[in-house]
Structures are given as structure tokens and as C-alpha cells.
């Protein structure tokens, strides 16, 4: 019966709906098998049709419960996960640097790889003495930490659309989480004017500007968004302002309504098309008062649009 050990129905009483749903949620297996045939063979169901009926009842219950449980996910958990992801990445890279210095001199390893790739090479090395053992062990920690970073990223990608569906769709899940983290929560992000959203993550540059040392920053972390990065430098200020305006609206819809709104995404696409079309007809450019990178209000308009929804 070892063949069915990994089956979701292994050890499940077919009459026990709660147990069946729990088993679906906990099931994990190295590889799939012909579960319907094995279920009939092991007596879980009399025939395949009955198996599929039981599978249907169990998966529907399990998915409903799992979705409900995850629905309680809140923005603070998302923030912790995102910050932990950044910490894991930074620390993994620091350890990798240390290793390059240490193991690079100590071990005879192929030095083509750098950073964490180098750490992975070192981790696979067979240590010959106590010193090498320490270096190899440290390399393994660095590699594990990188895997943890990847898992945290996957978690953030999965949770951000749940916490803030519109913001995650517009910004991408990781940038959405970053904005929520920088604001300290979805509610406080929803209360920020668009001009603040535009420069979140550029606080240092903003303070320098306010003290009169530097030009006003055009964008903070939203620079990583393709609408800003992929726009030619002259128009990035406009692009950042338009994007920030829509992100602010998206955050408000997510906080106050909590459901997806197609119109805000459509609006942003149109705005961006206009800005990019302008770049294409750049030769006879005329100033339309919307250029330049100053951080401007724009939230009055944004508010009006939220009311329109």
C-alpha cells in the first residue's frame, strides 16, 4: 500500500467531510500518480465516478476554507514578510561577500562565479580541515538564506493581491507591498496624497531638497515601475506623477471598498499612452503645463475620481 501513502485520501474515512477537506489542504507528494485508480484499489471509493464525487466535495470545501483563512491576512503580516525578504537578501549578500574574501583565498574553487553563486559553489565543496569546514558551513547558511528570500518573495507575491488587489495589479505585488510598508500600512497609504506616494522611498532626497540642498525628487520606489522606468527621461516626471495619482486611488479603493475596479487600471493605461505618444511626436513639442518633474498636488483631481467610481 506504499503506493498510496502520498495520496490525499490515505487514511481518510470517506464519510468524514472535514477530514477529507483537511487532507486536501495538507496533501503533498513528490510526484503525481493515477489517484483515481489507486483510490478504487485501496477501497476509498467503489469506482472512479464515486472517487471524483468525493474529490469534488473535498476540494470545494478545502478551497473555500483555505481562501477564507487567507482572507484574514492583514497588511502588517505583509509588511513583516517584505522587510524580512529585504533583510534576508541583504544578509545573504553580505555573507557572500565575506565568503568571496575568505573562501576565495582558502579553497581551490572555480572562481568564475561571484556573490551567492560563488557561495553555492563553496557550499558544495568537501571540507578538508576545520577551517574549511567553517567556510563551507557559512556558505550553506548564505545559500539557505537566499532560498528563504525566494520563499518570502513568493509569499509576498501571493499575499499582496489579497491585501490590496488594485494596488497589486497596478504596481505588481512586490512594489505594492513596498509602498504599503513605506507608508506603515494600507490605511495610512490610502490617506496619503498622491504627491507623497510619488516620493515614498526617496525621503532622504526630499529632506535634502527641503533644506535647499538638492532638486526635488521626481520619484521614490515607484521608479521601479515600467511606466516610469520605461518612459524617456524627459517625461519621467509626468509619468511618475500620473502613476502616483492612480496608485493613490488604487490604495483608497483597496482600503475602503476592497474589491477590484477595472476603470482605474484603464484610466492609467490611457494616461500612459498619452504621455508616450507625446514622446513620439517630440520634435514639435509644445508645453502643455503638464511637463516637468515637480512634485505637485494632483490629489484634488484624484479625490474627484474616487468619488466618480
Amino acid at each position, binding site marked *: 500500500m506504499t503506493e498510496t501513502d502520498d495520496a490525499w485520501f490515505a487514511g481518510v474515512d470517506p464519510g468524514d467531510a472535514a477530514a477529507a477537506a483537511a487532507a486536501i489542504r495538507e496533501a503533498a507528494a513528490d510526484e503525481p500518480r493515477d489517484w483515481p485508480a489507486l483510490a478504487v484499489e485501496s477501497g476509498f471509493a467503489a469506482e472512479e465516478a464515486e472517487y471524483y464525487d468525493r474529490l*469534488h466535495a473535498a476540494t470545494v470545501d478545502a478551497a473555500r476554507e483555505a*481562501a*477564507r483563512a487567507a482572507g484574514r*491576512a492583514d497588511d502588517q503580516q505583509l509588511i513583516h514578510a517584505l522587510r524580512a525578504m529585504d533583510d534576508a537578501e541583504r544578509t545573504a549578500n553580505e555573507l557572500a561577500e565575506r565568503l568571496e574574501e575568505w573562501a576565495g583565498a582558502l579553497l581551490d574553487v572555480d572562481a568564475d562565479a561571484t556573490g551567492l553563486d560563488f557561495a553555492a559553489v563553496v557550499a558544495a565543496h568537501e571540507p578538508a580541515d576545520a577551517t574549511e569546514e567553517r567556510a563551507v558551513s557559512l556558505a550553506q547558511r548564505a545559500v539557505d538564506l537566499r532560498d528563504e528570500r525566494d520563499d518570502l518573495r513568493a509569499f509576498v507575491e501571493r499575499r499582496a493581491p*489579497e491585501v490590496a488587489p488594485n494596488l497589486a495589479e497596478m504596481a505588481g505585488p512586490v512594489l505594492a507591498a513596498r509602498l504599503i510598508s513605506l507608508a506603515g500600512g494600507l490605511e495610512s497609504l490610502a490617506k496619503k496624497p498622491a504627491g507623497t506616494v510619488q516620493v515614498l522611498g526617496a525621503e532622504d532626497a526630499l529632506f535634502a531638497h527641503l533644506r535647499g540642498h538638492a532638486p526635488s525628487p521626481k520619484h521614490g520606489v515607484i521608479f521601479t515601475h515600467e511606466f516610469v522606468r520605461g518612459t524617456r527621461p524627459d517625461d519621467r516626471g509626468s509619468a511618475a506623477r500620473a502613476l502616483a495619482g492612480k496608485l493613490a486611488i488604487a490604495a483608497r479603493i483597496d482600503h475602503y471598498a476592497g474589491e477590484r475596479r477595472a476603470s482605474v487600471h484603464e484610466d492609467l493605461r490611457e494616461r500612459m499612452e498619452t504621455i508616450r505618444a507625446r514622446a513620439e511626436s517630440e520634435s514639435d513639442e509644445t508645453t502643455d503645463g503638464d511637463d516637468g518633474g515637480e512634485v505637485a498636488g494632483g490629489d484634488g483631481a484624484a479625490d474627484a475620481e474616487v468619488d466618480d467610481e
Partner: protein
Amino acid sequence: MSELPAGVERRTVAGEARLTTAGEPVYGEPTVDDRRVWDAGRSKLGAMLELGMDTRLAGGEKLLYLGAASGTTVSHVADFAGPTYAVEFAPRPVRDLVDVAESRPNLFPLLADARRPREYAGVVESGLDCIVQDVATRGQAEVANRNAQFLADDGLLLAAIKARSEDVVAEPQAVFEDVRATLSGSYEILETERLEPYHDDHLGVVARKR
């Protein structure tokens, strides 16, 4: 134009030939002769059929659908396919997906991450006829490769690849080349076609497991 799977039929709606399937309506889609209109503008697989790609679907397949979202497309798929496993990792759309599945005994919703087949390999059976994939996330080709283990020899992959999910600034053409190369690790590519005008910067892929 390739043949439609049994269970998918064209009907004339407002003077236009539209794809339809028979089943319980789910998202307020229009119906004609008790059949549900399948909108290619809201469904990549619908667009692949509408564009005449040879999906090789005959109807009645056992299949795995990756990226089911709230079930718009997979509801139509379950109307003509056999046992249909639907994987979606965002909890919010899964709530709607569960409603869609409730009236379809052959549709099995799973809240799971398609990058981690281990999570559902104890539920989804082996030897499937087809994988339909629409995950719109980075690493789409890798997702397809990891899930090839569920397919029978010669099993089919029908995937919609969204260029912007891989790289927001790169030329779609370049992204699609990379995707093709990665996919060829586990699949033989039979046909690809851009999904315009239904979906911008998406590539429809028909491939067979190696």
C-alpha cells in the same frame, strides 16, 4: 480553421459568430439557446480557439488548469472537458472559483502555487491529457516545465505567455524567444501565435510533452 472541441460551438449573437459552451452561467455572460457565450477578449484560451490555432482538444480531456483566477475561462473548459483540476494561488479569486466549481462536478478547485507542484501532486492525478496555463507571472515557462510531470506521454500544453510578466521593458519578441527556449526543455513546440487583437503582447503556445 481548425476544428473546435466537441462541446464548443459557434452561435450567432447580434450578427456575429461567437464561441459558446453549455453550462451554468457564472459571470453574467450573455447566453444564446441556453448556451454561454465565451468571450475571447476575456479568455486567452478562447482567443486561441477564435484565432484558429490547432489546440488539438477534442472534448472530454482530463486536464490541469494553472492560473484559474475567478474561473472565467476554466468554467467554459469544464463545460466541455472531463475531470478538470483548477489551480489558483490568490485567495480572493478562489472564493469565486469555488462558486463556479460548485455547480460543476468535474471541476476541482485548488488554492495552491503552480510553482510548487508538490503542494498538489497528492491530489492531481498523473497521465493528464492537457495543461492549460495562464498564470501571468514571472517564470511562466518554468511553471509549465515543472508541471509537465502531470501529463501523459504526448500530453499537451496550451499556454498563454504574457510578455510584460517576464520583463516589463523588454521587447515582447525577445521575451517570447526566451520562453520558447526554456519550454523546449520539457516540450516540443507545435504552434505559436500572438493573441492580438484579443490580448496585447501575449503569445499563445501549443506544445507537446517530450
